[in-house]
Each structure stands twice: as structure tokens, then as C-alpha cells.
């Protein structure tokens, strides 16, 4: 049988690998779509689906994204958009964690929800959606609530964790687990017209700093709920941070939080978690 790489090279169009050829190779050689995609990227071949990434993400960087694994904790308002964007970006592995099923009040904003999947687990919808839009991406659906007890297992081998939770208590548990495991965490939270986003790298205590005044319960989202657009905005900012963490480029939202007000259209940068200046021992 012909070598699979030669098979791919013969089918390039304008230097790009068409999806039809990737699919044909997978079927003919008995490889997964993911394995074909990795082989292509390793050999400097851009799958055609990523051609509009090309002038901002090199083929080597596209391979870095493919080899990364991102945990999305929560598959509701933020999580639905985060998963969609990670899959389209070409992140190779997504661990989707959520204990819940879709309910009718999710339909105003949660990308993965539809009348047809009410009552079905959110993580199952995540798997179905990603298989539909980018079959080269591997989704691990975990229908469970994240906590410090199961955290180390859920985050094993993960490059970045994305906070798409709707509970401050669980967020603090995620932040604690990420600190313990040395995993970067992108934190986002929303309520009504408002939201914020930040990035916590191992050793930082940014999320704890943001919620330093929290005692119990929910924030403004309890009364305001959430509309269609706020999760999309904050989720997109979170994914941009994930992309930059994986690729090691740009300036991260480290030690600062962007606070976004979509009603008055204001963005404020708040210093967060900047350590106190150390007194020199000398």
C-alpha cells in the first residue's frame, strides 16, 4: 500500500490539505482524523480548514495547538462558546466537564443547547458538536462536578484549564487545584451586562484575590441572569488567552483583570494579585 504521507502530498491543493483528502486517508489507511492531522502538521502541511489562521498562526504553532489539551470546566453559557472556539482553533484535545443536563432556561444563551437536546447531558452535546464541526479534535466528556477531590484526575495532562463555572466556591476549588498541579487557568465570570476575565499562572493567586471579599452565595447574576451576548464576549476573551498561553506569545491578562460593562460599553483594567514588593535580603 502507498505511504500515507505520499497519499496526502499528492492531494494537496494550493499547498493545503483538503478535508476530503484527510477523510479519505483516514478511511483508506484506518487512521483517526486526529492522527492524519498530526502527520500533516508535523510535515508542514496546513489542513485547508485552518488556512485563514495561516498569517497569524504558523504551521508549527498549529501543531502546538493540536498537541495541547484544554480542560473546559462548565459547559453552559461560557463553556459552550469556549468549546466551539477551541475546536475551530484546532486545539487537539478538549476535556469537557459538567454534571448538568440542558433545561429550557438555558436556550437564551447556551450555544450547545437546543430544543432537541433538553434533558440531555451538556457534555454529550459538547462531544456531538465538536465531532460535527472539527472531527480531528478529541473530546473527553466528563459528566461530573469539578472539585478539589476529583480535580487532579480530571486535569491530568492538561495544558490549560478554562473556568466556565457558575459557582464562586467551585471556581476557588479549581484555582486551588490548578495552583497545586502547576496548570495555567483562564478565569471568566459573567452576570447580566457585565463580566470579567483574567489569567492565573502557576504560583499566582489572582482568582483568590478577585474573590477576597466573597463569603458565600452568588453574585449579580443571581438577579440579572445572563443574556445571549455576555457569555460570547467573555468566552472569546478566554479563548484568546488560551491560544496565547499555548503558543507563548502576546501579553497575557496576568496580574490584571479586565472588567467589562456592555451596558455602558466600558472596559476597566483592575490590578489583581500583584505580589507585595519584596524587601531585599541584602
Amino acid at each position, binding site marked *: 500500500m502507498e505511504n500515507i504521507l505520499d497519499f496526502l502530498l499528492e492531494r494537496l491543493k494550493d499547498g493545503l490539505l483538503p478535508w476530503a483528502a484527510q477523510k479519505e486517508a483516514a478511511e483508506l489507511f484506518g487512521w483517526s482524523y486526529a492522527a492524519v492531522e498530526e502527520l500533516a502538521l508535523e510535515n508542514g502541511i496546513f489542513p485547508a480548514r485552518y488556512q485563514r489562521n495561516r498569517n497569524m498562526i504558523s504551521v508549527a504553532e498549529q501543531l502546538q495547538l493540536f498537541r495541547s489539551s484544554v480542560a473546559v470546566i*462548565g459547559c*453552559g*453559557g*461560557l*463553556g459552550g462558546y469556549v468549546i466551539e472556539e477551541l475546536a475551530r482553533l484546532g486545539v487537539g484535545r478538549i476535556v469537557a466537564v459538567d454534571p448538568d443536563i440542558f433545561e429550557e432556561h438555558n436556550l437564551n444563551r447556551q450555544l450547545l443547547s437546543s430544543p432537541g437536546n433538553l434533558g440531555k447531558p451538556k457534555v454529550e452535546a459538547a462531544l456531538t458538536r465538536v465531532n460535527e464541526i472539527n472531527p480531528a479534535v478529541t473530546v473527553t466528556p466528563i459528566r461530573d462536578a469539578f472539585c478539589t477531590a476529583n480535580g487532579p484526575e480530571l486535569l491530568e495532562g492538561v495544558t490549560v484549564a478554562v*473556568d*466556565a*463555572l*457558575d*459557582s*464562586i466556591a467551585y*471556581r476557588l476549588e479549581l484555582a486551588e487545584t490548578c495552583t497545586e498541579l502547576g496548570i495555567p487557568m483562564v478565569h*471568566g*465570570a*459573567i*452576570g*447580566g*451586562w*457585565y*463580566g*470579567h476575565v483574567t489569567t492565573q499562572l502557576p504560583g499566582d493567586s489572582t482568582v483568590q*484575590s*478577585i*474573590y*477576597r*471579599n*466573597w*463569603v*458565600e*452565595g*452568588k*453574585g*449579580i*447574576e443571581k438577579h*440579572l441572569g*445572563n443574556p445571549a451576548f455576555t*457569555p460570547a464576549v467573555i468566552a472569546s476573551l478566554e479563548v484568546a488567552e488560551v491560544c496565547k498561553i499555548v503558543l507563548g506569545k502576546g501579553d497575557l491578562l496576568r496580574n490584571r483583570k479586565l*472588567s467589562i*460593562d456592555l*451596558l*455602558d460599553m466600558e472596559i*476597566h483594567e*483592575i*490590578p*489583581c494579585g500583584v505580589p507585595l514588593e519584596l524587601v531585599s535580603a541584602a
Partner: protein
Amino acid sequence: MHIKVKLFATFRNGRFKEAGQERQEGTNCRKIILELGLTEEEIGIILVNGRHASLDHLLQDGDTLSLFPLVGGG
């Protein structure tokens, strides 16, 4: 003493975005928050002159106090 209070997000509803206030020396952040009709539980972030401060922080003449509500949805 004269201070400036800046409110963000839902804290602006029925109040103001920014206002100058005359206060007695020794006023802390908690006192201002309660006088605004806010509760401690609603408070997300307190900044004094752009730096994080606690409820007990004593304000000085010329300070700017910024208050952000707690946001935790997803």
C-alpha cells in the same frame, strides 16, 4: 476630608457613576458602602486609588474609592 466615589456595573443603578463626597476623618470603606445602601455581601472588589483595599481601610483626604459588585456566573 474630600473623597471621590466611583461605582461600577449594577452599583450605578439609582445612584451615580462618580461623585465627590465630604466625609469625616476616620471614615472607613464599610461606612461608605453601607451609607450607599449596599451590603458587604454584594461587594466584589474595593479599590482605593487603584489598589485593593479591605472594608476596614481608613480613607484619607483626596482618596478615590472604586466599588465593583460580585460577579460569578458562567
